[in-house]
């Protein structure tokens, strides 16, 4: 390593990073401030009354259907993630270690399912649900989220499981374990960090969904991202509650940052290597 000290280029670089840092952080700080601002002071500059803060927004949020909506989000995103993992991981395993010649087709199909326009899935689902009475049910929403989570889980667990050494699997099979036992007892524990990242990201995909819930849910099973919109009415926009709801919506996703970035990257990008 050579040391250049404080060259102008380096200072410029640090200045650039600080600008980006501000761009990243200011909207988040603004949302945090807004969620503690009383309605009476919303429209004056923040530096005129920086200490006028309130917890009233919590009250109005608790009185609304937002807590129930958070619960609905948790249940539907959680169930669809668990189901997708149970069904999808064996599929990823067989793609990673099987002798299939159709890997290219499989990878294209899985990518396409991840990338296909959600509106294409939602239109037929909406008509089917309308006829069988699954509109505005949690089961209907969980099934709809499988459209999002399952292809992702198969694709992403494929990447993590491909890194498990073949010898490990062969040794377990030689000891007389069945393929399924090998998967559950040997392969899954060995690939745990990658699979956890897969599950967390699958949950995030369902948790963040707005479009499916907007079309499929009504009053009963509305999820949190859709319920936030109830604070936006034509008469007035309850910015304090909106900001607070946005913050609450983000809180469960924050632990993702703490997870080993390496595994998140593997799960997201498939095999993007340098």
């Amino acid at each position, binding site marked *: *390593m050579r040391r250049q000290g404080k060259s102008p280029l380096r200072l410029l670089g640090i200045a*650039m*990073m600080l600008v*980006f840092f501000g761009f*990243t*952080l200011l*909207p988040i700080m*603004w*949302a945090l401030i*807004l969620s503690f601002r009383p309605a009476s002071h919303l*429209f004056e*500059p*923040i530096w005129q009354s920086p200490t006028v803060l309130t917890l009233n927004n919590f009250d109005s949020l608790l009185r609304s259907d937002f807590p129930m909506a958070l619960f609905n989000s948790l249940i539907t995103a959680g169930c669809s993630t668990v189901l997708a993992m149970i069904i999808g991981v*064996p*599929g990823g395993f*067989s793609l990673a270690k099987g002798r299939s010649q159709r*890997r*290219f087709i499989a990878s*294209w199909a899985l*990518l*396409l399912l*991840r*990338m*296909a*326009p*959600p*509106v*294409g*899935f*939602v*239109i*037929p689902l909406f*008509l*089917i649900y309308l006829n069988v009475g699954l509109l505005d049910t949690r089961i209907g929403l969980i099934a709809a989220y499988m*459209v999002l989570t399952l292809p992702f889980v198969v694709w992403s667990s494929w990447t993590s499981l491909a890194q498990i050494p073949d010898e490990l699997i062969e040794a377990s099979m030689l000891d007389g374990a069945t393929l*399924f036992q090998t998967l559950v007892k040997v392969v899954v524990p060995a690939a745990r960090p990658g699979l956890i990242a897969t599950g967390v990201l699958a949950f995030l995909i369902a948790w963040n969904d*707005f*479009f499916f819930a*907007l079309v499929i849910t009504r009053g009963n099973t509305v999820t949190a*991202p859709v319920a*936030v*919109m109830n604070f936006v009415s034509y008469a007035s926009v309850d*910015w304090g509650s*909106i900001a607070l709801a*946005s*913050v609450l*919506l*983000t809180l469960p996703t*924050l632990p*993702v*940052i*703490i997870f080993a*970035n*390496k595994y*998140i990257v593997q799960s*997201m990008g498939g*095999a*993007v*290597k*340098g």
Partner: protein
Amino acid sequence: MMIPSAIAVGVFAIVPLLGMFALSMTDFHLVKKWDHEFGFQNFIKLWNNKRFINSINVMLLLSVFGVIFQVALGTLIAVGLEKIIPKWRFMRGIFVIPFVVPAVAVALIWLSLLTPTLSPVNDFFDIFGITVPALLTSQYGAIAAIVMADTWASYPFVMLLILAALQGIPSDLDEAASIDGASKLQTFYKITLPLLAPALLMVSLFRFIETLKHFPLIHIMTTGGPGRSTQATNYYAYIQTFQNSNVSYGAAIAVFLFLFAAIISYYVARANARINDA
């Protein structure tokens, strides 16, 4: 072991897609009488529909500019984190935060920042007597607003993948170049950037397809307006299906988008296979 996954993917994903293709060939309408006409008439109508053509323009504007800014910003930050401030580890975590903010929250936060009466940005510039233009009320301003919000939310994805790619580049290459007398900028342009090219291409394609699916940002920040200036194709399909009840027409638009995604994902899958084989 493949069988349960294959069946489940079939049930949950392929069946709705087949439904989409089937519907696009009908004249099914939720409210109007159904004449049971089958064929390609929806696609012919689309071809001559100015709103549809407009929606493609909007979609491409949002996607192309969105991808350019996200990839540029994500790459700059990744390179900055690795080469300029490698010791400030905690910064990495902070730069990832926007990635986990749900799209609805992103849209609402940026809507509040772009509402002139509310925004601290407007308040700040008012001190100097500068009036910040209200982006959301002008045609290209609204597009810029969505591109900005999307850039904020999506550059961390690019950053994470580019960081991973940077860490895969052996550091002795940099050292060799510096011994040969190359400046840091030269090293970056001549060595680092070419080595990043495959990752950059991949991440651009990934983001391009994601930006084609814009929904929450448009629905919450502009509802397609002002006029139809932010009514991208995906959003237009939603309007046709769920506001105008014109289901088969919406399905035809979805088929168009699907074929578009099929072409791009084919190239992503091929690029991926090549990386894996290498």
